[in-house]
């Protein structure tokens, strides 16, 4: 239920306007929002029509359902797919035809207006299709290989320039017994 509410409230934040997918960050505090220059985000589209882009974003949310992950991160998948579509007409066709199929399977030929569960059921019917696989395969890299996702999931990325973790918590787990020094020696002190 919470998921559904979040999903619906989130929907209000995605807006479409002539070749641009835009949105507003939900998070107002935390590392993630600190990283964003403004709370509004926008993605200029070079190849995909607006409604196709938005449907792809929502399809990606169904395939990789991270309830609290911002649309702005999912939009990075759309961005990469838009770029591939611009370079390769075959990809563009797969994406446009895929969204057409989502719509065809929906009431009033509009998948985006279906409720969350019905949207998901329709996505399920597309598992294994070129459309589904293109989005899934792209997402595996695009969704999880960016600073915003890292901040969201808590991954800290590059550490060399910060001196690694030798003095920054590589042993800070404190909810289990400490191994003895014969097993895990103390760190070397210069």
């Amino acid at each position, binding site marked *: 239920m919470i998921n559904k509410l979040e999903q619906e409230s989130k929907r209000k934040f995605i807006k479409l306007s002539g070749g641009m997918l835009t949105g507003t960050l939900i998070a107002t505090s935390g590392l993630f929002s600190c990283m964003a220059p403004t709370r509004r985000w926008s993605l200029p589209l070079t190849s995909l029509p607006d409604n196709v882009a938005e449907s792809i974003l929502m399809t990606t949310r169904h*395939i*990789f*359902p*991270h309830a609290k992950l911002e649309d702005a991160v999912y939009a990075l998948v759309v961005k990469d797919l838009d770029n591939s579509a611009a370079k390769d007409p075959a990809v563009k066709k797969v994406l446009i035809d895929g969204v057409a199929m989502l719509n065809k399977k929906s009431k009033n030929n509009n998948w985006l207006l279906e409720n969350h569960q019905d949207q998901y059921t329709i996505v399920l019917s597309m598992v294994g299709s070129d459309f589904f696989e293109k989005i*899934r395969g792209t997402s*595996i*890299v695009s*969704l*999880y*290989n960016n600073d915003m*996702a*890292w901040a969201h*999931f*808590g*991954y*800290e*990325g*590059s*550490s*060399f320039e910060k*001196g*690694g*973790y*030798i003095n*920054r*918590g*590589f*042993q*800070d*787990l404190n*909810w*289990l*017994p*400490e*191994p003895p020094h*014969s*097993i*895990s*020696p*103390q*760190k*070397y002190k210069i």
Partner: protein
Amino acid sequence: MKNINLNDSNTVVIIGSGAGGGTLANELCQQGVNVVLLEAGSKQSTKTFVNDEWKSFSQLAWLDNRSTSGGWRVSKDFPNLPAWICKTVGGSTTHWAGASLRIQAHEFKALSTYGSVKGANLLDWPITLDDLAPYYDLAENKMGVTRTNGIPGLPGNSNFKVMYAGAEKMGYKQCHTGRMAINSKPRDGRAGCQQLGFCFQGCKMGAKWSTLYTEIPAAMATGNLELRAGCHVMKIQHNDKGLADGVLYIDEDGKQQLQKARVVCVAGNSIETPRLLLNSATEMFPNGLANSSDQVGRNYMRHTTGSVYATFDKPVRMWRGTTMAGIIQDEAKHDPSRGFVGGYELETVSLGLPFMAAFIDPGAWGKKFANALDNYENMAGLWIVGEDLPQESNRITLHPSDKDQHGLPVPNVHFDDHPNDKIMREHAFEQGTKLYKSVGAKETYRVPPYPSTHNLGTCRMSLHAKDGVCNKHGQTHDIKNLFISDGSQFTTSAAENPTLTIVALAIRQAQFIANQLSTNKI
């Protein structure tokens, strides 16, 4: 750097600059032998390494096209990436985690110890642990392996704390922070480990041993080495007496070159090494070089692996600190009462978020997948490294039609698990799962093997020429001045991470080659 003439037929040519080739080059140069070291990849450094999984992967990994077949899941999920190994100066010593374990005495005698196993092509090594022990000593000292030579162990990270607490609950007695070729304090002109957490991406501290910044510069300093990077070998040539006499390669400008040679040593890792021998077939050697036994490319082993990841209520942040931060060795024994022969090690492992997404369950999606990553901060992980059995049908062959960028047939890597491998993996998955549950895991994840990092056995050593490709010195049975100098030599896989053994064999081989040269036997 020395400049060795292409027509200098008195030179030793080594193909591949990783653990085997890089070490062999240095050891020969130290003994006054002139060496041309050919490396297909380009040269990176601690400065150019990047703390970024995908970027580093493009920088270091061997990405030339390969094909796969067989029942292993890698063939389905990563059909063109059977192995996660490197194409760069230093080879996969840039990427390895640093675990440096000696093969156990009984593992050198796999056939005698385990007996004949149906479907397996088991054989005893033509050397014993006693034969190799002095060279293990030298290798451990050279590489600065912790818990040897008075070098303290590394401090364990949080991922290790979870492993250790679980090991205690399980009653395991042999759990510690490992024998690692990573400096726990500055040594040998290299820094101590700063716990960056990017061991797999090339150690930017240079704390982890890699031939890139140890053996190769040491060899260079003798004035006896010429390193040629960006040079992909196409073919080893031979004279009418059937002796190797040169190496044909494409240089970094795309030009074909022929380097004359007195001795040729192949150390291209267990896919490229047999591929090169097969691609070098001639009228005299129609099945490829050194292949009278028909064993070139066969008995491909990759260790019985898999990972167990577990999520907890509280943070672990396993990515902080050394990737292989500790080990459990209790299961590495041979105890057939468990239902399989051979044993396995359990070692901590971690992946950054990008690679966790790619590898936790390739092809997966949906709630379970998303939930695992939602708990990424609270995740701990371990990797299974077990002995897999040699099978003749697991092999590297030349693809009948697909060619690489140089027009050479690409290698096909065929692999099926032996029933013993499956039973062992299941046992290890169970133990790993129980271990994490014993310390409060919420969810556990059985992660299938990654593209192979330990590639072994495709030109194995054997006492008799009919059973293998090379003898106990890595000298091929058929061509006395052609040597196998990498993990392809392994007669069986044993349960241990292979690098230390590859280095020990290279040191031993260098002594043998230098002796053969000085007595004009080759």
